Protein backbone atom coordinates (compact mmCIF):
# COMPACT_ATOMS: atom_id res chain seq x y z
CA UNK A 1 0.00 0.00 0.00
CA UNK A 2 1.47 3.31 -1.01
CA UNK A 3 1.64 6.18 1.42
CA UNK A 4 -0.98 8.31 -0.34
CA UNK A 5 -3.31 5.33 -0.52
CA UNK A 6 -2.85 4.61 3.19
CA UNK A 7 -3.66 8.17 4.21
CA UNK A 8 -6.74 8.45 2.02
CA UNK A 9 -8.15 5.04 2.90
CA UNK A 10 -7.49 5.32 6.64
CA UNK A 11 -8.97 8.83 6.66
CA UNK A 12 -12.07 7.59 4.87
CA UNK A 13 -12.48 4.68 7.29
CA UNK A 14 -12.13 6.97 10.29
CA UNK A 15 -14.51 9.56 8.84
CA UNK A 16 -17.02 6.86 7.96
CA UNK A 17 -16.88 5.44 11.50
CA UNK A 18 -17.34 8.94 12.84
CA UNK A 19 -20.26 10.03 10.64
CA UNK A 20 -22.11 6.88 9.63
CA UNK A 21 -22.36 5.53 13.16
CA UNK A 22 -24.30 8.64 14.12
CA UNK A 23 -26.96 7.75 11.61
CA UNK A 24 -27.02 4.00 12.10
CA UNK A 25 -26.62 3.51 15.82
CA UNK A 26 -29.17 5.10 18.02
CA UNK A 27 -28.41 2.78 20.95
CA UNK A 28 -25.82 4.31 23.27
CA UNK A 29 -24.36 0.87 23.99
CA UNK A 30 -22.64 0.84 20.62
CA UNK A 31 -20.52 3.82 21.68
CA UNK A 32 -19.58 2.20 24.99
CA UNK A 33 -18.47 -0.97 23.21
CA UNK A 34 -16.86 0.89 20.31
CA UNK A 35 -14.87 3.08 22.69
CA UNK A 36 -13.30 0.00 24.31
CA UNK A 37 -12.34 -1.54 20.97
CA UNK A 38 -10.80 1.77 19.79
CA UNK A 39 -8.97 2.14 23.10
CA UNK A 40 -7.42 -1.28 22.52
CA UNK A 41 -6.36 -0.25 19.00
CA UNK A 42 -4.37 2.60 20.59
CA UNK A 43 -2.96 0.40 23.37
CA UNK A 44 -1.92 -2.48 21.12
CA UNK A 45 -0.46 -0.14 18.50
CA UNK A 46 1.51 1.62 21.24
CA UNK A 47 2.71 -1.70 22.65
CA UNK A 48 3.75 -2.82 19.19
CA UNK A 49 6.00 0.22 18.64
CA UNK A 50 8.19 -1.04 21.48
CA UNK A 51 7.37 -4.76 21.37
CA UNK A 52 7.02 -5.50 17.68
CA UNK A 53 9.36 -2.96 16.08
CA UNK A 54 12.08 -2.67 18.74
CA UNK A 55 11.76 -6.13 20.33
CA UNK A 56 11.31 -5.13 23.97
CA UNK A 57 8.39 -6.60 25.91
CA UNK A 58 6.35 -4.28 28.11
CA UNK A 59 4.12 -6.04 30.63
CA UNK A 60 3.37 -2.85 32.57
CA UNK A 61 0.78 -1.48 30.15
CA UNK A 62 -1.62 -1.05 33.08
CA UNK A 63 0.80 1.35 34.77
CA UNK A 64 1.18 3.63 31.75
CA UNK A 65 -2.54 3.50 31.06
CA UNK A 66 -3.45 4.30 34.68
CA UNK A 67 -0.92 7.13 34.93
CA UNK A 68 -2.72 8.74 32.00
CA UNK A 69 -6.08 8.17 33.67
CA UNK A 70 -4.99 9.48 37.06
CA UNK A 71 -3.34 12.56 35.58
CA UNK A 72 -6.78 13.35 34.18
CA UNK A 73 -8.29 12.86 37.64
CA UNK A 74 -5.80 15.36 39.08
CA UNK A 75 -6.51 17.84 36.30
CA UNK A 76 -10.25 17.34 36.75
CA UNK A 77 -10.03 18.16 40.43
CA UNK A 78 -7.77 21.18 40.01
CA UNK A 79 -8.83 22.73 36.70
CA UNK A 80 -11.60 22.66 34.14
CA UNK A 81 -9.52 21.86 31.06
CA UNK A 82 -11.18 20.17 28.07
CA UNK A 83 -10.58 16.44 27.58
CA UNK A 84 -8.26 16.80 24.52
CA UNK A 85 -5.83 18.83 26.66
CA UNK A 86 -6.02 16.15 29.34
CA UNK A 87 -5.14 13.55 26.71
CA UNK A 88 -2.01 15.51 25.82
CA UNK A 89 -1.04 15.92 29.49
CA UNK A 90 -1.70 12.22 30.21
CA UNK A 91 0.50 11.36 27.26
CA UNK A 92 3.27 13.61 28.58
CA UNK A 93 3.19 12.04 32.05
CA UNK A 94 3.27 8.47 30.72
CA UNK A 95 5.96 9.44 28.23
CA UNK A 96 8.13 10.66 31.10
CA UNK A 97 7.45 7.38 32.94
CA UNK A 98 8.42 5.42 29.83
CA UNK A 99 11.63 7.42 29.46
CA UNK A 100 12.56 6.83 33.11
CA UNK A 101 11.84 3.11 32.92
CA UNK A 102 13.86 2.80 29.74
CA UNK A 103 16.76 4.81 31.08
CA UNK A 104 17.05 2.63 34.19
CA UNK A 105 16.69 -0.79 32.62
CA UNK A 106 17.40 -0.71 28.90
CA UNK A 107 21.15 -0.83 29.23
CA UNK A 108 20.72 -4.42 30.39
CA UNK A 109 19.28 -7.47 28.68
CA UNK A 110 15.74 -7.09 27.37
CA UNK A 111 14.42 -9.65 29.83
CA UNK A 112 15.15 -7.35 32.75
CA UNK A 113 13.12 -4.63 31.10
CA UNK A 114 10.15 -7.00 30.83
CA UNK A 115 10.41 -8.02 34.48
CA UNK A 116 10.88 -4.46 35.67
CA UNK A 117 7.75 -3.34 33.79
CA UNK A 118 5.76 -6.14 35.46
CA UNK A 119 6.85 -4.90 38.86
CA UNK A 120 6.32 -1.26 37.83
CA UNK A 121 2.57 -1.83 37.59
CA UNK A 122 2.47 -3.04 41.20
CA UNK A 123 4.52 -0.15 42.51
CA UNK A 124 2.59 2.51 40.60
CA UNK A 125 -0.55 0.96 42.08
CA UNK A 126 0.97 1.15 45.58
CA UNK A 127 1.58 4.86 45.09
CA UNK A 128 -1.96 5.53 43.88
CA UNK A 129 -3.44 3.45 46.74
CA UNK A 130 -1.53 5.61 49.22
CA UNK A 131 -2.36 8.92 47.52
CA UNK A 132 -5.53 10.24 49.15
CA UNK A 133 -5.95 13.21 46.82
CA UNK A 134 -6.97 10.91 43.96
CA UNK A 135 -9.15 8.75 46.21
CA UNK A 136 -6.61 6.18 47.41
CA UNK A 137 -7.89 2.62 47.43
CA UNK A 138 -11.50 3.84 47.81
CA UNK A 139 -11.48 5.17 44.26
CA UNK A 140 -12.76 8.48 42.99
CA UNK A 141 -15.94 9.68 41.31
CA UNK A 142 -15.57 11.89 38.26
CA UNK A 143 -18.70 13.78 37.28
CA UNK A 144 -19.04 14.28 33.54
CA UNK A 145 -20.06 17.69 32.25
CA UNK A 146 -23.78 17.87 31.50
CA UNK A 147 -23.35 18.80 27.87
CA UNK A 148 -20.97 17.39 25.33
CA UNK A 149 -18.84 20.17 23.80
CA UNK A 150 -19.70 19.49 20.14
CA UNK A 151 -22.70 17.30 19.43
CA UNK A 152 -24.68 14.32 20.69
CA UNK A 153 -24.18 12.72 24.07
CA UNK A 154 -20.99 12.81 26.11
CA UNK A 155 -20.19 9.18 25.37
CA UNK A 156 -20.43 9.96 21.64
CA UNK A 157 -17.92 12.76 22.20
CA UNK A 158 -15.51 10.38 23.98
CA UNK A 159 -15.99 7.83 21.22
CA UNK A 160 -15.09 10.45 18.61
CA UNK A 161 -11.99 11.49 20.56
CA UNK A 162 -10.84 7.88 20.86
CA UNK A 163 -11.47 7.35 17.16
CA UNK A 164 -9.25 10.30 16.28
CA UNK A 165 -6.62 9.10 18.74
CA UNK A 166 -6.57 5.61 17.27
CA UNK A 167 -6.25 7.04 13.77
CA UNK A 168 -3.34 9.21 14.91
CA UNK A 169 -1.57 6.32 16.64
CA UNK A 170 -1.95 3.98 13.67
CA UNK A 171 -0.65 6.74 11.40
CA UNK A 172 2.34 7.27 13.73
CA UNK A 173 3.06 3.53 13.76
CA UNK A 174 2.94 3.31 9.98
CA UNK A 175 5.11 6.39 9.51
CA UNK A 176 7.70 4.93 11.88
CA UNK A 177 7.57 1.63 10.04
CA UNK A 178 8.60 3.28 6.77
CA UNK A 179 11.18 5.67 8.21
CA UNK A 180 14.85 5.55 9.17
CA UNK A 181 13.68 5.42 12.77
CA UNK A 182 11.75 2.22 12.05
CA UNK A 183 14.79 0.68 10.34
CA UNK A 184 16.83 1.48 13.44
CA UNK A 185 14.18 -0.10 15.67
CA UNK A 186 14.16 -3.24 13.53
CA UNK A 187 17.94 -3.44 13.61
CA UNK A 188 17.82 -3.40 17.42
CA UNK A 189 15.16 -6.10 17.43
CA UNK A 190 17.06 -8.38 15.07
CA UNK A 191 20.53 -8.08 16.62
CA UNK A 192 21.33 -5.36 19.08
CA UNK A 193 25.07 -5.96 19.18
CA UNK A 194 25.32 -5.90 15.39
CA UNK A 195 23.21 -2.74 15.24
CA UNK A 196 25.44 -1.06 17.80
CA UNK A 197 28.53 -2.12 15.85
CA UNK A 198 27.03 -0.76 12.63
CA UNK A 199 26.65 2.67 14.22
CA UNK A 200 22.98 2.60 15.19
CA UNK A 201 22.56 4.76 18.33
CA UNK A 202 20.77 1.93 20.15
CA UNK A 203 20.23 3.49 23.58
CA UNK A 204 18.81 6.69 22.09
CA UNK A 205 16.49 4.81 19.75
CA UNK A 206 15.30 2.54 22.56
CA UNK A 207 14.52 5.57 24.70
CA UNK A 208 12.57 7.16 21.84
CA UNK A 209 10.66 3.90 21.49
CA UNK A 210 9.79 3.53 25.20
CA UNK A 211 8.83 7.20 25.49
CA UNK A 212 6.60 7.16 22.42
CA UNK A 213 4.99 3.87 23.34
CA UNK A 214 4.38 4.97 26.95
CA UNK A 215 2.98 8.33 25.83
CA UNK A 216 0.43 6.74 23.51
CA UNK A 217 -0.68 4.39 26.30
CA UNK A 218 -1.15 7.34 28.64
CA UNK A 219 -3.17 9.14 25.98
CA UNK A 220 -5.43 6.09 25.68
CA UNK A 221 -5.95 6.15 29.44
CA UNK A 222 -6.59 9.88 29.84
CA UNK A 223 -10.31 9.90 28.89
CA UNK A 224 -10.98 6.79 31.04
CA UNK A 225 -12.20 8.65 34.18
CA UNK A 226 -14.92 10.32 32.11
CA UNK A 227 -15.82 7.02 30.47
CA UNK A 228 -16.23 5.00 33.68
CA UNK A 229 -17.07 8.00 35.97
CA UNK A 230 -15.73 5.96 38.89
CA UNK A 231 -12.03 5.09 38.94
CA UNK A 232 -10.28 2.87 41.48
CA UNK A 233 -6.74 1.46 41.51
CA UNK A 234 -7.74 -2.21 41.15
CA UNK A 235 -9.75 -1.70 37.98
CA UNK A 236 -7.49 0.91 36.38
CA UNK A 237 -4.30 -1.11 36.98
CA UNK A 238 -6.01 -4.31 35.93
CA UNK A 239 -3.69 -6.95 34.51
CA UNK A 240 -6.21 -7.50 31.71
CA UNK A 241 -5.03 -4.27 30.02
CA UNK A 242 -1.52 -5.71 29.81
CA UNK A 243 -2.72 -9.13 28.67
CA UNK A 244 -4.90 -7.61 25.96
CA UNK A 245 -2.22 -5.21 24.75
CA UNK A 246 0.27 -8.07 24.48
CA UNK A 247 -2.19 -10.57 23.04
CA UNK A 248 -3.62 -8.30 20.33
CA UNK A 249 -0.36 -7.56 18.44
CA UNK A 250 0.84 -11.15 18.90
CA UNK A 251 -2.41 -12.55 17.51
CA UNK A 252 -2.69 -9.96 14.74
CA UNK A 253 0.99 -9.93 13.81
CA UNK A 254 3.81 -7.80 15.15
CA UNK A 255 5.75 -6.85 12.05
CA UNK A 256 3.26 -4.43 10.50
CA UNK A 257 0.93 -1.67 11.68
CA UNK A 258 -2.12 -3.59 10.50
CA UNK A 259 -1.42 -6.51 12.88
CA UNK A 260 -2.32 -4.76 16.15
CA UNK A 261 -5.39 -3.23 14.48
CA UNK A 262 -6.62 -6.65 13.30
CA UNK A 263 -5.90 -8.15 16.73
CA UNK A 264 -7.61 -5.32 18.59
CA UNK A 265 -10.73 -5.33 16.43
CA UNK A 266 -10.97 -9.12 16.55
CA UNK A 267 -10.26 -9.68 20.25
CA UNK A 268 -12.00 -6.50 21.33
CA UNK A 269 -15.19 -7.47 19.52
CA UNK A 270 -15.08 -11.07 20.78
CA UNK A 271 -14.66 -9.79 24.32
CA UNK A 272 -17.52 -7.32 24.04
CA UNK A 273 -19.78 -10.07 22.72
CA UNK A 274 -18.62 -12.57 25.36
CA UNK A 275 -19.12 -10.04 28.16
CA UNK A 276 -22.74 -9.47 27.16
CA UNK A 277 -23.58 -13.08 26.33
CA UNK A 278 -21.42 -15.25 28.64
CA UNK A 279 -19.50 -13.67 31.52
CA UNK A 280 -16.80 -11.08 32.05
CA UNK A 281 -14.42 -13.46 33.85
CA UNK A 282 -14.61 -16.05 31.11
CA UNK A 283 -13.73 -13.58 28.36
CA UNK A 284 -10.39 -12.91 30.07
CA UNK A 285 -9.75 -16.64 30.04
CA UNK A 286 -10.49 -16.64 26.30
CA UNK A 287 -7.85 -13.97 25.70
CA UNK A 288 -5.23 -15.81 27.77
CA UNK A 289 -5.87 -19.13 26.05
CA UNK A 290 -5.86 -17.50 22.58
CA UNK A 291 -2.56 -15.79 23.43
CA UNK A 292 -0.91 -19.07 24.45
CA UNK A 293 -2.37 -20.93 21.47
CA UNK A 294 -1.21 -18.29 18.97
CA UNK A 295 2.36 -17.96 20.25
CA UNK A 296 2.72 -21.75 20.05
CA UNK A 297 0.95 -22.44 16.75
CA UNK A 298 1.26 -19.19 14.77
CA UNK A 299 4.11 -17.13 16.27
CA UNK A 300 3.80 -14.49 13.55
CA UNK A 301 0.09 -13.96 14.04
CA UNK A 302 -2.65 -13.60 11.47
CA UNK A 303 -0.54 -11.33 9.26
CA UNK A 304 2.17 -14.00 9.30
CA UNK A 305 -0.33 -16.69 8.27
CA UNK A 306 -1.61 -14.56 5.39
CA UNK A 307 1.91 -13.77 4.20
CA UNK A 308 2.90 -17.44 4.33
CA UNK A 309 -0.15 -18.40 2.25
CA UNK A 310 0.57 -15.65 -0.28
CA UNK A 311 4.17 -16.79 -0.58
CA UNK A 312 3.07 -20.40 -1.06
CA UNK A 313 0.68 -19.34 -3.85
CA UNK A 314 3.43 -17.39 -5.65
CA UNK A 315 5.61 -20.45 -5.62
Amino acid sequence: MSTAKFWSISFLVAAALLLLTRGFFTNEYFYFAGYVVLQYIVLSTAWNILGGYTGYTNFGVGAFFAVGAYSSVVLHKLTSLPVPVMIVVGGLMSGILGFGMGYLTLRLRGVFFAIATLALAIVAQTFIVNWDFVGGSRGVYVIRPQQAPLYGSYIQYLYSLMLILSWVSVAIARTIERSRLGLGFNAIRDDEAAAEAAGVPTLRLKLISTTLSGALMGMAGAPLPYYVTYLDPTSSFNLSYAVNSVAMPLIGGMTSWIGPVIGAVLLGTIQQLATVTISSALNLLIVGVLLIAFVIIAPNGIVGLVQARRRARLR
Partner: protein
Amino acid sequence: MRRGTDHGRGREDAAIARGRWVRVCGLAFVPLTGMVSLDLAVNAVVAGLLLGGFYAAVTVGVTISFGMLEIVNIAHPAFIMLGSFVAYIVNSNFGIDPILIGVVMAPVFFLVGMAVYQIYFYAFEQRGEESIQGLAFFFGLLFVGEVALILVFGVDYRFVEASYIGPSLHFGFVDLPLRMLTPCLVSLLMLGVLQVFLGRTFIGRAILAVSQDRLALQLMAANPTRVKRIAFGISIATASVAGALLIIIQPVEPSVGRDYIGRIFAICVLGGMTSFPGMLAGAMLIGIVESITATFYGPSWAPAVAFGFLLLTLAVRPAGILGR
Protein backbone atom coordinates in the same frame (compact mmCIF):
# COMPACT_ATOMS: atom_id res chain seq x y z
CA MET B 1 -16.63 -2.84 37.92
CA ARG B 2 -18.61 -3.74 41.01
CA ARG B 3 -16.65 -6.93 41.60
CA GLY B 4 -13.44 -5.05 40.95
CA THR B 5 -14.04 -2.69 43.84
CA ASP B 6 -14.92 -5.44 46.34
CA HIS B 7 -11.80 -7.13 45.20
CA GLY B 8 -9.83 -3.99 45.96
CA ARG B 9 -11.20 -3.80 49.44
CA GLY B 10 -10.30 -7.47 49.99
CA ARG B 11 -6.76 -6.75 48.91
CA GLU B 12 -6.49 -4.00 51.45
CA ASP B 13 -7.82 -6.28 54.16
CA ALA B 14 -5.14 -8.77 53.25
CA ALA B 15 -2.50 -6.07 53.46
CA ILE B 16 -3.77 -5.32 56.94
CA ALA B 17 -3.81 -9.02 57.84
CA ARG B 18 -0.28 -9.32 56.57
CA GLY B 19 0.66 -6.33 58.60
CA ARG B 20 -0.74 -7.89 61.75
CA TRP B 21 2.12 -10.30 62.15
CA VAL B 22 4.69 -7.83 60.92
CA ARG B 23 3.84 -5.00 63.27
CA VAL B 24 4.63 -7.05 66.28
CA CYS B 25 3.82 -4.49 68.92
CA GLY B 26 0.39 -3.66 67.60
CA LEU B 27 1.29 -0.19 66.37
CA ALA B 28 0.23 0.38 62.81
CA PHE B 29 2.10 3.56 62.34
CA VAL B 30 4.82 5.24 64.29
CA PRO B 31 5.16 8.93 63.48
CA LEU B 32 8.67 9.70 62.35
CA THR B 33 8.94 12.41 64.96
CA GLY B 34 8.20 9.92 67.72
CA MET B 35 10.75 7.70 69.43
CA VAL B 36 11.52 4.52 67.56
CA SER B 37 11.59 1.99 70.35
CA LEU B 38 14.31 -0.63 70.39
CA ASP B 39 12.07 -3.65 70.91
CA LEU B 40 9.88 -2.59 68.01
CA ALA B 41 12.90 -2.34 65.74
CA VAL B 42 14.38 -5.66 66.95
CA ASN B 43 11.06 -7.40 66.45
CA ALA B 44 10.76 -5.92 62.96
CA VAL B 45 14.20 -7.25 62.05
CA VAL B 46 13.42 -10.70 63.47
CA ALA B 47 10.11 -10.80 61.60
CA GLY B 48 11.99 -9.72 58.48
CA LEU B 49 14.50 -12.56 58.85
CA LEU B 50 11.68 -15.09 59.17
CA LEU B 51 9.90 -13.52 56.20
CA GLY B 52 13.15 -13.58 54.21
CA GLY B 53 13.59 -17.27 54.94
CA PHE B 54 10.16 -17.88 53.48
CA TYR B 55 10.93 -15.67 50.45
CA ALA B 56 13.86 -17.98 49.72
CA ALA B 57 11.41 -20.86 49.21
CA VAL B 58 9.34 -18.75 46.82
CA THR B 59 12.39 -17.65 44.86
CA VAL B 60 14.42 -20.86 44.65
CA GLY B 61 12.34 -22.12 41.72
CA VAL B 62 13.05 -18.97 39.72
CA THR B 63 16.73 -19.12 40.64
CA ILE B 64 16.78 -22.54 38.97
CA SER B 65 14.62 -21.70 35.93
CA PHE B 66 15.65 -18.08 35.27
CA GLY B 67 19.14 -18.06 36.80
CA MET B 68 20.44 -21.44 35.73
CA LEU B 69 18.36 -22.40 32.68
CA GLU B 70 17.72 -18.88 31.35
CA ILE B 71 14.00 -19.65 31.00
CA VAL B 72 12.16 -16.50 32.04
CA ASN B 73 9.36 -18.22 33.89
CA ILE B 74 7.26 -15.25 34.99
CA ALA B 75 4.40 -17.72 35.52
CA HIS B 76 6.13 -19.09 38.62
CA PRO B 77 3.79 -17.19 41.01
CA ALA B 78 0.82 -18.87 39.29
CA PHE B 79 2.27 -22.28 40.16
CA ILE B 80 2.80 -21.11 43.74
CA MET B 81 -0.86 -20.07 43.86
CA LEU B 82 -1.80 -23.48 42.54
CA GLY B 83 0.26 -25.03 45.36
CA SER B 84 -1.56 -22.84 47.89
CA PHE B 85 -4.98 -23.84 46.62
CA VAL B 86 -4.10 -27.55 46.49
CA ALA B 87 -3.00 -27.24 50.13
CA TYR B 88 -6.23 -25.40 50.90
CA ILE B 89 -8.50 -28.01 49.29
CA VAL B 90 -6.83 -31.02 50.93
CA ASN B 91 -6.47 -29.29 54.28
CA SER B 92 -10.07 -28.08 54.47
CA ASN B 93 -11.46 -31.46 53.40
CA PHE B 94 -9.18 -33.90 55.23
CA GLY B 95 -7.40 -31.75 57.79
CA ILE B 96 -3.95 -32.92 56.67
CA ASP B 97 -0.94 -30.74 57.55
CA PRO B 98 -0.36 -28.20 54.73
CA ILE B 99 3.42 -28.69 54.64
CA LEU B 100 2.97 -32.44 54.27
CA ILE B 101 0.54 -31.79 51.41
CA GLY B 102 3.08 -29.51 49.74
CA VAL B 103 5.81 -32.16 49.94
CA VAL B 104 3.55 -35.00 48.79
CA MET B 105 2.25 -32.98 45.84
CA ALA B 106 5.75 -31.93 44.75
CA PRO B 107 6.20 -34.95 42.40
CA VAL B 108 2.95 -34.04 40.63
CA PHE B 109 4.19 -30.47 40.20
CA PHE B 110 7.48 -31.93 38.95
CA LEU B 111 5.62 -33.75 36.16
CA VAL B 112 3.61 -30.61 35.32
CA GLY B 113 6.86 -28.66 35.12
CA MET B 114 8.41 -31.24 32.78
CA ALA B 115 5.32 -31.02 30.55
CA VAL B 116 5.45 -27.21 30.47
CA TYR B 117 9.14 -27.32 29.58
CA GLN B 118 8.43 -29.79 26.79
CA ILE B 119 5.88 -27.41 25.26
CA TYR B 120 8.27 -24.48 25.73
CA PHE B 121 11.09 -26.45 24.12
CA TYR B 122 9.15 -27.49 21.01
CA ALA B 123 7.38 -24.17 20.53
CA PHE B 124 10.19 -21.73 21.30
CA GLU B 125 13.68 -23.02 22.15
CA GLN B 126 13.88 -25.31 19.16
CA ARG B 127 12.65 -22.62 16.77
CA GLY B 128 14.97 -20.06 18.33
CA GLU B 129 12.05 -17.78 19.20
CA GLU B 130 12.67 -17.51 22.90
CA SER B 131 12.43 -13.76 23.26
CA ILE B 132 9.02 -12.13 22.91
CA GLN B 133 6.92 -15.17 22.08
CA GLY B 134 8.43 -17.19 24.92
CA LEU B 135 7.84 -14.37 27.40
CA ALA B 136 4.28 -13.95 26.15
CA PHE B 137 3.75 -17.70 26.59
CA PHE B 138 4.62 -17.54 30.29
CA PHE B 139 2.71 -14.29 30.69
CA GLY B 140 -0.33 -16.02 29.21
CA LEU B 141 0.17 -18.94 31.61
CA LEU B 142 0.36 -16.54 34.56
CA PHE B 143 -2.86 -14.86 33.52
CA VAL B 144 -4.76 -18.04 32.62
CA GLY B 145 -3.73 -19.61 35.94
CA GLU B 146 -5.01 -16.61 37.87
CA VAL B 147 -8.30 -16.32 35.96
CA ALA B 148 -8.91 -20.06 36.18
CA LEU B 149 -8.42 -20.01 39.95
CA ILE B 150 -10.77 -17.01 40.22
CA LEU B 151 -13.41 -18.85 38.16
CA VAL B 152 -13.18 -21.90 40.44
CA PHE B 153 -12.63 -20.34 43.86
CA GLY B 154 -13.78 -16.74 43.47
CA VAL B 155 -11.88 -13.86 45.02
CA ASP B 156 -12.48 -14.79 48.67
CA TYR B 157 -9.48 -15.16 50.94
CA ARG B 158 -8.75 -18.78 51.88
CA PHE B 159 -6.65 -20.09 54.75
CA VAL B 160 -5.55 -23.40 56.24
CA GLU B 161 -5.72 -24.87 59.74
CA ALA B 162 -2.65 -26.24 61.51
CA SER B 163 -1.49 -26.50 65.11
CA TYR B 164 1.40 -24.05 64.60
CA ILE B 165 -0.80 -21.26 63.27
CA GLY B 166 -1.50 -18.99 66.19
CA PRO B 167 0.96 -19.62 69.05
CA SER B 168 4.28 -17.77 69.39
CA LEU B 169 7.56 -18.36 71.15
CA HIS B 170 8.79 -15.54 73.40
CA PHE B 171 12.41 -14.72 74.17
CA GLY B 172 12.39 -11.62 76.34
CA PHE B 173 10.73 -8.97 74.24
CA VAL B 174 11.32 -10.86 71.00
CA ASP B 175 8.32 -12.66 69.54
CA LEU B 176 8.71 -15.64 67.24
CA PRO B 177 5.29 -16.44 65.75
CA LEU B 178 5.26 -20.14 64.82
CA ARG B 179 3.31 -19.45 61.63
CA MET B 180 6.40 -17.52 60.45
CA LEU B 181 9.07 -19.69 62.06
CA THR B 182 7.82 -23.00 60.63
CA PRO B 183 7.75 -21.85 56.98
CA CYS B 184 11.18 -20.27 57.43
CA LEU B 185 12.68 -23.51 58.78
CA VAL B 186 11.00 -25.67 56.12
CA SER B 187 12.27 -23.27 53.46
CA LEU B 188 15.84 -23.43 54.77
CA LEU B 189 15.61 -27.24 54.87
CA MET B 190 14.40 -27.33 51.26
CA LEU B 191 17.22 -25.00 50.23
CA GLY B 192 19.77 -27.23 51.98
CA VAL B 193 18.42 -30.36 50.31
CA LEU B 194 18.53 -28.70 46.88
CA GLN B 195 22.05 -27.40 47.48
CA VAL B 196 23.27 -30.91 48.40
CA PHE B 197 21.37 -32.37 45.43
CA LEU B 198 22.97 -29.94 42.98
CA GLY B 199 26.45 -30.37 44.41
CA ARG B 200 26.59 -34.10 45.06
CA THR B 201 24.42 -35.99 42.60
CA PHE B 202 25.10 -36.67 38.93
CA ILE B 203 21.92 -34.98 37.70
CA GLY B 204 22.50 -32.04 40.02
CA ARG B 205 25.98 -31.48 38.64
CA ALA B 206 24.63 -31.83 35.12
CA ILE B 207 22.12 -29.04 35.88
CA LEU B 208 24.94 -26.78 37.07
CA ALA B 209 26.87 -27.71 33.94
CA VAL B 210 23.95 -26.66 31.71
CA SER B 211 23.89 -23.30 33.41
CA GLN B 212 27.62 -22.84 32.81
CA ASP B 213 28.22 -24.15 29.30
CA ARG B 214 25.57 -25.93 27.28
CA LEU B 215 27.81 -26.71 24.32
CA ALA B 216 30.50 -28.27 26.46
CA LEU B 217 27.89 -30.52 28.06
CA GLN B 218 26.77 -31.63 24.63
CA LEU B 219 30.37 -32.46 23.76
CA MET B 220 30.46 -34.70 26.84
CA ALA B 221 27.63 -36.71 25.22
CA ALA B 222 24.99 -35.52 27.69
CA ASN B 223 21.59 -34.34 26.50
CA PRO B 224 21.05 -30.72 27.62
CA THR B 225 17.33 -30.83 26.83
CA ARG B 226 16.75 -33.77 29.16
CA VAL B 227 18.78 -32.11 31.91
CA LYS B 228 16.87 -28.87 31.47
CA ARG B 229 13.55 -30.69 31.52
CA ILE B 230 14.39 -32.29 34.86
CA ALA B 231 15.70 -29.01 36.25
CA PHE B 232 12.57 -27.14 35.20
CA GLY B 233 10.46 -29.90 36.75
CA ILE B 234 12.33 -29.40 40.02
CA SER B 235 11.83 -25.64 39.86
CA ILE B 236 8.05 -26.13 39.54
CA ALA B 237 8.10 -28.81 42.27
CA THR B 238 9.45 -26.21 44.71
CA ALA B 239 6.34 -24.13 43.96
CA SER B 240 4.20 -26.85 45.54
CA VAL B 241 6.05 -26.51 48.87
CA ALA B 242 6.30 -22.72 48.56
CA GLY B 243 2.56 -22.48 47.93
CA ALA B 244 1.80 -24.51 51.04
CA LEU B 245 4.12 -22.26 53.07
CA LEU B 246 2.49 -19.14 51.62
CA ILE B 247 -1.01 -20.11 52.70
CA ILE B 248 0.30 -20.80 56.23
CA ILE B 249 1.76 -17.29 56.43
CA GLN B 250 -1.12 -15.31 54.97
CA PRO B 251 -4.66 -15.81 53.68
CA VAL B 252 -4.55 -16.33 49.94
CA GLU B 253 -6.72 -15.35 46.98
CA PRO B 254 -5.80 -15.93 43.32
CA SER B 255 -4.27 -12.52 42.55
CA VAL B 256 -1.95 -12.54 45.59
CA GLY B 257 0.61 -14.21 43.33
CA ARG B 258 1.06 -10.98 41.40
CA ASP B 259 2.58 -9.26 44.43
CA TYR B 260 5.31 -11.87 44.36
CA ILE B 261 6.50 -11.24 40.80
CA GLY B 262 8.54 -8.16 41.65
CA ARG B 263 9.75 -9.68 44.90
CA ILE B 264 10.86 -12.98 43.36
CA PHE B 265 12.81 -11.42 40.54
CA ALA B 266 14.26 -8.71 42.76
CA ILE B 267 15.61 -11.39 45.12
CA CYS B 268 16.87 -13.49 42.24
CA VAL B 269 18.75 -10.57 40.70
CA LEU B 270 19.99 -9.30 44.08
CA GLY B 271 21.40 -12.74 44.83
CA GLY B 272 23.40 -12.87 41.63
CA MET B 273 20.99 -15.14 39.69
CA THR B 274 22.59 -18.55 40.14
CA SER B 275 23.86 -18.97 43.69
CA PHE B 276 21.67 -20.22 46.52
CA PRO B 277 23.60 -18.48 49.33
CA GLY B 278 23.40 -15.20 47.41
CA MET B 279 19.69 -15.73 46.87
CA LEU B 280 19.16 -16.40 50.58
CA ALA B 281 21.04 -13.20 51.46
CA GLY B 282 18.90 -11.26 48.97
CA ALA B 283 15.72 -12.79 50.41
CA MET B 284 16.71 -11.87 53.98
CA LEU B 285 17.56 -8.33 52.89
CA ILE B 286 14.22 -7.82 51.13
CA GLY B 287 12.40 -9.46 54.07
CA ILE B 288 13.99 -7.15 56.63
CA VAL B 289 13.49 -3.98 54.58
CA GLU B 290 9.85 -4.87 53.87
CA SER B 291 9.21 -5.70 57.50
CA ILE B 292 10.73 -2.43 58.71
CA THR B 293 8.75 -0.50 56.08
CA ALA B 294 5.53 -2.23 57.15
CA THR B 295 6.22 -1.60 60.85
CA PHE B 296 7.09 2.06 60.61
CA TYR B 297 5.26 3.31 57.52
CA GLY B 298 2.29 0.95 57.20
CA PRO B 299 1.89 -2.33 55.29
CA SER B 300 0.40 -0.71 52.20
CA TRP B 301 3.85 0.62 51.25
CA ALA B 302 5.64 -2.75 51.49
CA PRO B 303 5.08 -3.89 47.86
CA ALA B 304 7.01 -0.86 46.58
CA VAL B 305 10.14 -1.86 48.49
CA ALA B 306 11.06 -4.93 46.46
CA PHE B 307 10.62 -3.04 43.23
CA GLY B 308 12.77 -0.18 44.45
CA PHE B 309 15.49 -2.69 45.22
CA LEU B 310 15.06 -4.37 41.84
CA LEU B 311 15.47 -1.09 39.96
CA LEU B 312 18.37 -0.02 42.14
CA THR B 313 20.16 -3.33 41.66
CA LEU B 314 19.57 -3.32 37.92
CA ALA B 315 20.80 0.25 37.62
CA VAL B 316 23.80 0.06 39.97
CA ARG B 317 24.94 -3.52 40.34
CA PRO B 318 23.33 -5.96 37.89
CA ALA B 319 25.61 -8.80 39.04
CA GLY B 320 23.90 -8.89 42.45
CA ILE B 321 25.23 -8.32 45.95
CA LEU B 322 27.37 -11.44 45.98
CA GLY B 323 28.03 -11.39 42.23
CA ARG B 324 31.40 -11.44 40.59
